[in-house]
């Protein structure tokens, strides 16, 4: 009788603990987690796949010579800007409607390497309809001391369609020599030293 009772209790404890474990490690959560991991991997893979076509589509393309405006309404054309700042420059292009965290990260990449880059050859080029928000972006992104201009017109290259902040190296014939864009799936946080090195090499080449 005593033995039966002990077996009964042990069985009950085992079953109830299993139920508890099932609840804690909810099967649906595990499945969702697995799906999430697969999604993340496929997003990363598709981002890697995108790098190549975007490079092919953009490199060698000629941008349109647009009028750029600063916060005080002073105007300069893109070509004039490049000619006064060197044979090649880096443009960090960002738009008002793109995610702010991604823009901040893209800007911080350049900021982190400001000793490497000649910052006079870096142009932060906003695409912001509102003059008020353009001024605010200068303050929020802490880029007042650099070259910051606004151009609401399309630059006429494929990269304008990706709706994400990106970098291009562009020469004084308005030819795109290289394009570098952070991975959307990671908010650009894997835009690392390798990309910066490539960008720098392209700039000084």
């Amino acid at each position, binding site marked *: 009788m005593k033995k039966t009772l002990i077996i009964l209790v042990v069985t009950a404890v085992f079953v109830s603990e299993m139920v508890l474990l099932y609840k804690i490690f909810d099967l649906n959560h595990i499945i969702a987690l697995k799906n999430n991991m697969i999604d993340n991997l496929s997003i990363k893979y598709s981002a890697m796949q995108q790098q190549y076509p975007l490079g092919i589509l953009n490199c060698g393309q000629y941008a349109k010579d647009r009028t750029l405006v600063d916060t005080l309404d002073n105007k300069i054309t893109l070509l004039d800007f490049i000619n006064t700042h060197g044979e090649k420059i880096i443009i960090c292009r960002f738009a008002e409607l793109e995610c702010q965290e991604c823009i901040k990260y893209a800007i911080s990449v350049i900021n982190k390497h400001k000793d490497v880059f000649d910052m006079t050859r870096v142009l932060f080029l906003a695409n912001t309809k509102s003059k*008020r928000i353009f001024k605010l972006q200068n303050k929020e992104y802490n880029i007042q001391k650099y070259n910051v201009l606004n151009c609401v017109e399309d630059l006429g290259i494929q990269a304008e369609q990706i709706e994400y902040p990106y970098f291009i190296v562009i020469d004084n014939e308005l030819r795109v020599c290289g394009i570098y864009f952070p991975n959307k799936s990671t908010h650009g946080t894997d835009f690392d030293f390798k990309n910066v090195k490539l960008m720098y090499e392209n700039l000084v080449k």
Partner: protein
Amino acid sequence: MKQLLLIIFVATIISCNNQQNYSERNVICDVEEINISSALENKDLIISDIVDSVKIIVLETTEKSILSSINQVIVGDKFIYIRDNYESGGVAIFKKDGSFLKRLSHGGGPGEINRAMRISYDKYNKKLLVSDSRKILIYNEKGDFIKDISPKFIYADFIAFKDKYLFFQLDIQNAETNLPSFIITDTLFKAIDKFYLNKKRYVMGGNFLSYTDNQDEVTFFRPLDNSIYSIGYDGKIKTKYKLIFPDFEANTDKYNECRDNTFWTELNKEQKGKCYFVGDFAETNNYLFFRFDKIRKGDVYVYINKKTKAIFSGINPFMTNELPNMGLLAGAYGNYFVKYLSLEYFGGIGAMSKIIEANKKFLSENDLAKLQNYKEDDNPILILYKMK
């Protein structure tokens, strides 16, 4: 020994019996249907026929008060609260005349906002509540910090109503995580009621909460579901208004399986001229406002007088430059609908002379002067308008 084993056995069984204490709740539907078919025909909205008066508030522009893109506007008793995109989500407070009071500071310290996701004004207790990631920051109506609280449950969004708060999840989340759609709490954020709403199809985009300052209940809706629902203190969900438009209703059932933007692509491709409720709904003391999309024709604004049930409507009404038609719907306050106008999206400062001309009949001399002095990089204009 036997007793000890028995206690362990009972305790274990009890621990495993911790069932979720929330259930599906049905919607009580005993409301009169409003047929709005006539409103959805192609015609212009002459807003001057139905607007009684218009007030404008130019939000002061200074180095500190400059606003990023506006996400939410609440007109409170004494102050105007604006949630904008500043630092990925900030809150600015203005006085009722538009003069700047303060911007809630950013950071991780006490009373500082990291990323404001939603603001709510508890008008009964005169408090401003800011949802910031996983905590709620509570301020007095002037924006002085009182305390913050981290609710002990998962939520996507929240709103205040009389002496209670309502937290809710988006459909997609509760379908996948088995969490309640709604949690009603007391003012200390202790959950007192949790429930599901019976399931409907998940639709990408659109708003959820209605624009109204009536805090005796919470009204909400789902895009493409032509009903407006309300939740009372007792947790009962009612259909408050049900719209029918048999001549124009878009058939959305055929896209039931679409869970992403292909839904909208297919809908817009196939059903030109048909209409669906976009998800903008506002309610003042005497009028209702709905925004519909007429596929590939444009927006249809529909106003309904709550007493007489008279319907006024029109397509793409902002083309007229009349201020009550322009701007984006931002809220309701007493008898007033509230919109905000960022001029850069409506023709820039060059459009101002046309706007002034079109609104002379609505505006006081003082308000017209404000528009004449408006500069291109000034903060957006708030438009408050009352219907006849």
